[in-house]
């Protein structure tokens, strides 16, 4: 089955599950939104999908991407891109260095540069390759973070409340920018948020199973 498939996924702290077993299919080019209060395990679910779950938590269930199981693969071989609320650009690298970080190995210098320049043009930031990320505005940094994730050629995109830090005007534009780029590449997108205004596509409410977990 193409796209992102979750079957009976459970995450627990010790013996206590964070949410009821979750099954979900996000076909290629479509978006699903997981809604829930903070502490219900949304971010932990995304960490589990990336392969970076906190060792204090345990998880069960099956996840596959375009028919291939992800279970047991290390994060760097899953090709699952993720965007957070903060842009998390690497502070020691230039804008171009950040964009080039996830490019596939074996590209020629010219090819690397061409892909970075093309990504900068798409992000409406031509000529920004040598800039220090700290000198960019919040909206510019957010666009660089998206292009960085896309240049790594992911097969799915996870969004962990990625619009929360932006002001209202920027927010709608960046949301359209992210979803547009993901759709153009036919990526399955899983968005988690607590804000109904961010939601897109099919909406699933992730209710806490037991008592709410304090953050």
């Amino acid at each position: 089955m193409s796209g992102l498939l979750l079957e009976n996924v459970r995450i627990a702290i010790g013996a206590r599950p964070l949410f009821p077993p979750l099954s979900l299919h996000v076909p290629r080019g479509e978006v699903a939104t997981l809604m829930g209060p903070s502490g219900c395990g949304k971010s932990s679910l995304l960490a589990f999908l990336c392969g970076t779950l906190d060792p204090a938590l345990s998880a069960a269930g099956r996840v596959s991407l375009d028919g291939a199981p992800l279970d047991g693969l290390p994060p760097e071989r899953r090709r699952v891109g993720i965007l957070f609320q903060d842009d998390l650009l690497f502070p020691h690298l230039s804008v171009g260095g950040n964009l080039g970080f996830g490019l596939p190995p074996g590209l020629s210098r010219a090819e690397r540069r061409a892909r970075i320049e093309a990504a900068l043009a798409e992000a409406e930031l031509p000529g920004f390759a040598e800039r220090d990320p700290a000198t960019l505005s919040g909206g510019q940094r957010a666009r660089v973070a998206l292009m960085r994730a896309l240049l790594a050629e992911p097969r799915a995109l996870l969004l962990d409340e990625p619009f929360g830090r932006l002001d209202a005007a920027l927010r709608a534009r960046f949301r359209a920018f992210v979803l547009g780029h993901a759709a153009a590449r036919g990526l399955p997108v899983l968005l988690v948020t607590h804000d109904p205004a961010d939601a897109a596509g099919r909406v699933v409410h992730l209710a806490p199973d037991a008592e709410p977990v304090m953050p």
Partner: protein
Amino acid sequence: MTRALPALLAFGVVAVPVAAGLLGTLLPAFGVLPAIGADGPSLDPWRRLFAEPGLPRATLLSLATGLGATVLSLLLVALFCAAAHGTRGVARAQALAAPILATPHAALAIGVLFLIAPSGLLLRLVSPWATGLDAPPDVATVNDAWGLALLLGLVVKETPYLLLMTLAALNQIPATRLVAVATSLGQPKPVAWLKVVFPLLYRQIRLPVLAVLAYSVGTVDVALILGPTTPPTLAPLLLRWATSPDLSLLLPASAGALLLLGVALTAIGAWLAAERAVAPLGRAWAASGLGTGAGALRAGATLLPFLLLLACAALVALVLWSVAGPWRFPDALPDRVQADTWTSQAAALATPAANSLSAALLATGLALALAVAALEARARHGAAALPWLLALTPLPLLLPQASFLLGLQTALLTLGLEGGLPAVVLVHLVFVLPYVLLSLSGPYAALDPRLPRVAACLGASPLRVFLAVKLPVLARPLLAVAAVGIAVSIAQYLATLLAGGGRFATLTTEAVTLAAGGDRRVLGVFAVAQAAIPLLAFGAALLLPALLWRDRAALRA
């Protein structure tokens, strides 16, 4: 198992020598040291120890100077921070304290000696116009029988340390808001600080305070330079026996090392009991309504800047003597400055300097590698990496050094390891690694865990995440911690002397030996050279990130 390996290694590097040292102290203390033909068990070492006429006084002096130095240092820091809260004085004091922290104990103690000796700089500055003296007075202002010069030397060195630890801990407390609330209720600012900030702060600096106490009770180098001589404090008395050609004196020295351990644990116990006694009084005072005494607190707060200036003057005195030409009492300055002492001592400096540097670089490099591996394992594997074991690693800082170093000497002797660079580096690690771990764990924990996660999701292997993301982002704290490691290693006197079997000369062992002699110019040269290495290391740790990250605003700040 492999997940726990880094923590086990770090713990072992510190705990194994300490355990071996304590065992090597315990057995000879009861007459068992086959290497010198003592087959025990017997209580003779204790009889010999207690037959020493100066022992009760030496023991009391160690206890009193140790407790006194800790109380005074903490008091000066608390008074200053209370009165100077929210003023520019804090940043100024911090800037003055940093180079003093970097200066090894021995060099600073020699500087204090140059200041307060009867022919010292302080008396020269007021003579003869105010004192009428044209010859140094015959008064024991250093090596006094009461240990007052020793007390001053300890306070001068430990106050800047506690100040910097306090300022670092204040960043983790909402001090500004707490004081703002308390002053808005009508408390004068210094009183408000003591009532609402100090109780929270004290918990954070408890380990450094107890480390100061244990170090001060057991200090050897500062006591040899500034302390009383007949009798000395307990630790130098034991050292005198342990390094005597008469090997049978190793037995009472070991018994004495156990006594020293008991004295230090008694001091720590007394301190903890005093905490319990003072806490309810402090709570009652804090709850008693508006406080008075702000004026007295502000007056007391001037003591710390005065002490920092004294420490800086001590460093100036070191440099002055190292370049002094003819300098008669009571002239405040030498007739001329000259490089003669430096050029004549260049050959004598070379080997000790090379030994100091190689031990410091090796011990610091190993400590950094062990600490980074352990913290990296903790970040990746959580509880499986045994973080509690890592938390136990700094505990030997709460033991007086002589209590296990004397025994470690006999253990190294038995293993045939004594006397070379490897033994010195291994023993330096016991002190360098805890400070490196303590200094690095904060910055490591403060690194945003999502940064390595993002890198992994972009396809970077764990090794690439570590090398291309974590190390560069942590470059500034890593360099600062390396400077701490170098400063700790360079400062080691007893560890170097005992692990080196007296044959591994460093700038520190030479400076302390020279302090017993009379040539102040040569002493000045060695003390300046000793202090220069950690000062240069701290300078480099400040300068390199500014150069490296001149185009990266987020890492420059």
